[in-house]
């Protein structure tokens, strides 16, 4: 790992994608082949394998919602989780990651699942319930018992450091989002 900032192009990400399953992914993408890598391969990437949210991340960015990613999805994922993605984009995707049942709201069951993923059964059921109630209490602005995107964004505004934590380091080097746009 160096002190220089190395920029990555979509090309290098493509090679990374291909390395996961060289027999499935062709080198020639000009015909836009319909190739999907199953979730197990994505989830075994060293950058993601210890992340408790890896399944949710894969599901959010995949086309079919099951975690099986095409190259487009893969590029999307790393572009949003990079340093240069805009705040609103990151907040939007963070919300989607925490929304387990995909109903555009973070309800109590979503919170419970998040808590369980983050604490790995370190809290008792009662404690889990109390924490979730407290979260809804504190963050729910429009008082409908669940967190909408607006509530979540309001909370993010007061904790700007979180958006800096929401990035994945690819191969220990940063992926400069803007260079991608320029590379084409």
């Amino acid at each position, binding site marked *: *790992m160096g*002190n*220089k*900032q190395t920029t990555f192009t*979509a090309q290098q*990400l493509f090679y990374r994608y291909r390395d996961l399953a060289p027999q499935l992914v062709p080198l020639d993408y000009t015909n*836009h082949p319909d190739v999907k890598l199953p979730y197990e391969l994505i989830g075994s990437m060293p*950058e993601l*394998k*210890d*992340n*408790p*949210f890896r399944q949710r991340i894969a599901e959010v960015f995949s*086309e079919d919602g099951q975690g099986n990613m095409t190259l*487009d999805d893969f*590029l*999307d994922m790393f*572009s949003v*989780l990079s340093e240069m993605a*805009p705040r*609103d*984009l990151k907040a939007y995707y963070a919300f989607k990651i*925490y929304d387990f049942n995909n109903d555009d709201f973070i309800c109590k069951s979503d*919170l419970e699942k*998040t*808590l369980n993923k*983050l*604490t*790995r059964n*370190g*809290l008792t059921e009662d*404690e889990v319930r*109390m*924490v979730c109630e*407290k*979260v809804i209490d*504190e*963050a729910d*602005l*429009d*008082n*409908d018992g669940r967190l909408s995107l607006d509530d*979540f964004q309001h*909370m993010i505004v*007061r*904790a*700007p*450091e*979180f958006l*800096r*934590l929401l*990035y*994945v*380091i690819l191969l220990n080097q940063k992926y400069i*989002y803007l260079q*991608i*746009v*320029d*590379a*084409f």
Partner: protein
Amino acid sequence: VAMSTREQIRAVRDLPMNFEEKKRIRWVLTLGQLRIIRTIVMCQSPTITPKICCGAVLQQRELFPQFFRRFGYSLRSARQTLQLWQGTMKEIGGKFGTSVLTYFLFLKWLLMFNILSFLINFGFVTIPLLVYDHTPDVPAAVSFRGLEILTGAGYFNYTAMYYGSYSNETLAGPVEYNMQLAYFFTISLYMVKMLVVCFCSLCPSPCSMAKSFKKNYVLADPASSSAWQLLCTWDFTITNERAVRQRKNNLCVQLKVNESLSEKAQREMLTLSEKLRHFGIHLGSWLLSTSLAFGCGISIYYLYTASWSPQQEAETLLVPFVVSLMNLVIPLFYSLFNKFEIYSSHRKQIYALVLRNVLLKMSILAVMCYYWMNVVAVKFSCWESMVGQALYRLVIIDFLFLMLGSLFGEFLSNVIGTKYLPRLGVPEFDVARNVLELIYAQTLAWIGIYFSPLLPVIQILKFFILFYVKKVSLIQNCQPPRRSGRAAQMKTIFIALLFFPSFLGALSIVAYTAWSLTPSEQCGPFRGLNNSFSAIGDWIADLEEKTPGSEWSVWIYENVIKSEVFYFFISLVVIITIYIFWQVTEGRKLLIVQLRQQIVNVSVLKPIQ
């Protein structure tokens, strides 16, 4: 609704355009770019259609031809590589989080500031002196020995390092250069610059520091809330399994602590006897810490009276040594007291600790300044150089102790924590203590600038070496902080601490020296005057006589700078402005409460989804 690349391209095919334009769009909307831009555009306005998306993309490419964009990017990356330590900062921030990063950013900021002040001082004051008279006026008996680097006296006494060697004449040469005025104005410029920089950092937008001030103090405090801890603190950058497990455990513990604290607060109000007990403990610790601080101050005073003998060079190192030792050891006692006390929130605990440390350092500095102003200034000739030397010694010994502190604080803790007492674990980087040490070092430099114009050089070297020492120590010995950092808020507090006790204290000492103390007779740029400020008075009187057209500047001097009414008026204006802003803030807080209630009311009217 997400649309795949293929569907987008199909949509493009259906657009009523000719083949050439479609080919261009098709080329534009290639693989990654389409998805990336589409996602942003869709995110910002969910009702967008592919046509508008294409239009937006086309517009972008037309407005900014590729050449300029590439040029802009390469300029930006070149500028980034030129910035000092950019890569190291990223490495530290990535591994240890933003709160540790604030320390290093603060250190870099102070270093830049010192470089700037060095350039100002060197350019306006030292270079003219060196040009005019480049051989130091060293008496025959004194030669350079190694001890000077530590004590600052001896050979250094006669060089441009200290106030004493600066001449008070108007230097003849290609241009007439009034050394007195130059010295005075350079020091004032330095102080004014610092004032402006600090104010800009604390004042309202566009500075980002002030935005964080607004966010963290005006709106409700989020960090103690469970919501924030649950949803906004998970660090997605960790890839180490052990670190992940550790973080999960910490989060568990923090959530449990939050739960128990709030439950306790709700279920039982503390009984009267418990409240009294807590109050007693707090009172006791505060009394103890304040008396420790004053005790230190007084002992320094007596040590000074006993040992101030400029001839005995090695003895002069005693007091700086004792000062640094006190600064190292007494905060450990304070941390010990802190463990016995019970605070309602972690934040209050840190504030109390920081306040006590600041009190200790300020009292030691105050006592030393008192001694210099009242005893040294009266008893000795060429006293400014002596004060300069004393400050030089303090700076050097402080530097040595900072390095030793890194060694013992972090390295030994690491060794003990891993091998002998695994219960303690690997130490964390104590940001608060390190930042306070930096502020103290900078205060010494600020006081010293009047007496030793080249002190910024030492400061620059000191900070430069300190950066690397701390970085290596951090990476080898410390673990990332367990508690999620409140970096933005701490940054504001550190700047405020830097400004209020530290800078204002140094400014008042220098101002007192310039206004009230008689400069020494034999040396320095202000010899022969009643006080340094009369250099200005003499210059104005000069102007009045010699240049008839400058009545306006004389008038300004007489009626504005010298009159009390002007300052009274300015203070009144400042106080009124502060009051107005305060009322606006209060009004806005009320508005926030009302708006929140409105959100609840409106949501009742929304159709159930």
